[in-house]
């Protein structure tokens, strides 16, 4: 009898994870650069029972019976589709207009120094450093890298910023001077392989070689002529691509399934009760 219960409890735990994924999507439906995640179920192990060894009836199916022990979340895939653009009228709000392109962010990584992570969240700021210089940072205060992988510094008292379609940041001064910086932009060929570091940051898995993958297959640093492929605009942000109506219907579906499996547990419990009640 316990198998009914085990099957249902296995599945309940996994359904809980799906509900967690959905609620995280809903919670981030207003996060700039957030990409929705989709959980898909898969079947758990099947077990073979040879309960009819003496049975010689002609039948189609192979000997014995087989049945499974529930479902688990087989894959959680990220939907990398472009989110819609929200106009903000702020010079340093940058947004990509093409999929799979990411800003290179220099994230401090404890003793290892600096780790390059990738994000599409483009609300940038400047932070003062020494000698009247400022540094381009993102909302977490991490430096934004240029195409050579270095942080971007320029003198303070900027009048405004401009961004060209191919990812060149122009810093304009009141006296008419203009500095330009090529923003470091990476195209993630197979973003599903990337490790989700935190927030909206993706990083190359540290064991990428052990996994047998070639780094060049996964990400491409966009340099030189290829920069024409970049699609970037400023004064707007890419909002998340969470579709609230889909999430809500998935939530209802998951919740009903949860009830369904809980019901199986209570029925299993009643059956155990019947066994106990034989005498």
């Amino acid at each position: 009898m316990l198998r009914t219960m085990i099957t249902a409890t296995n599945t309940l735990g996994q359904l809980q994870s799906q509900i967690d994924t959905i609620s995280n999507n809903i919670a981030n439906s207003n996060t700039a650069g957030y990409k929705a995640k989709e959980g898909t179920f898969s079947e758990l192990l099947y077990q073979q029972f040879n309960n009819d060894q003496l049975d010689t009836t002609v039948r189609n199916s192979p000997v014995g019976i087989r049945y499974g022990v529930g479902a688990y979340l087989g894959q959680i895939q990220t939907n990398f589709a472009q989110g819609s653009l929200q106009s903000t009228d702020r010079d340093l709000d940058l947004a990509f207009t093409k999929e799979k392109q990411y800003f290179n962010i220099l994230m401090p990584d404890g003793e290892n120094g600096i780790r390059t992570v990738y994000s599409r969240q483009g609300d940038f700021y400047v932070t003062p450093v020494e000698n009247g210089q400022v540094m381009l940072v993102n909302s977490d205060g991490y430096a934004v890298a240029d195409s050579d992988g270095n942080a971007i510094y320029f003198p303070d008292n900027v009048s405004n910023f401009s961004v060209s379609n191919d990812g060149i940041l122009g810093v304009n001064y009141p006296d008419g001077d203009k500095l330009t910086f090529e923003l470091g932009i990476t195209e993630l060929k197979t973003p599903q392989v990337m490790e989700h570091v935190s927030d909206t940051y993706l990083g190359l898995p540290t064991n990428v070689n052990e996994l047998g993958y070639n780094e060049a297959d996964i990400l491409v640093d966009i340099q030189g002529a290829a920069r024409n492929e970049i699609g970037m605009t400023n004064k707007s942000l890419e909002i998340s691509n969470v579709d609230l109506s889909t999430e809500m219907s998935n939530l209802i579906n998951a919740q009903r399934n949860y009830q369904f499996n809980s019901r199986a547990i209570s029925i299993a419990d009643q059956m155990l009760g019947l066994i106990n009640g034989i005498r």
Partner: protein
Amino acid sequence: MFKGFYTVATGMVSQQRKTEIITNNMANANTPGFKSDQSTIRSFPDMLLSAKGKTNIPTENKLSIPQINQIGSINTGVYLQETLANFTQGSIYGTSQKTDVALINGAMPTDEQSGQVGTIFFRLQHPNGGEAYTRNGNFTLDGEGYLVNGQGLYVLSAEGERIHLQNDEFNFTQEGNILVNDELVASLGVSFSANPDTLVKQDNGLYRTIDGTNLPSAIGQEGVSFSMKQSYLEGSNVDSAQSMTDLLTAYRAFEANQKVLQAYDKSMDKAVNEIGRV
């Protein structure tokens, strides 16, 4: 001892198995490509009952001849004989992944011997050698750019090769051809099983042949037509209302068996404690 005492016990065991199978169906109500399991319950082989007696012939010496009178056959129990997957098409639903693909059955021939309707599957390379088949088209790309299923098993093309794609910028046509920039890269392999009941169902929605032989390709198979749809998945064909009803029916059948068991127990109680009382 009463024969029926054990008969009801087998009844309870088989109803219990049935609830286990139904629970697994319900658990997989959201699993793409899942085919619900149906169970068949069968009685134990026939047993012939005879009454041993004798006939007295009124002769001088009172001759009596032993005689066996056949009473009839009984079955002393039931067991769950077969679990058969129901291979009917599940409904398809949209996703946002380009690597998701739904397989949609068209016309399928009926096997003349078994009366079974054939069905088609995606081809996967099984790590233990040979091929495995699945209806779950929730695929993804691995780091090397091969099309794999959720567990990392390679999806095979019509030629039986792994499918290498640079990224997910590709299109599946209805026929299963994979186009990158309108150029044909590979076409998805689809296998046909004339009698899918002979397949063994495994975890992760895999089906394998019992002897390890590969199924024939469905492409060009006579009487078989199918189509594919990118960014769609085939949902499971579990009917929740039906499953719940079946579960409650199995529960009540279990309860009824338990009641009969109690009745037997009461009879035995009488036999043991009352008949012999002086």
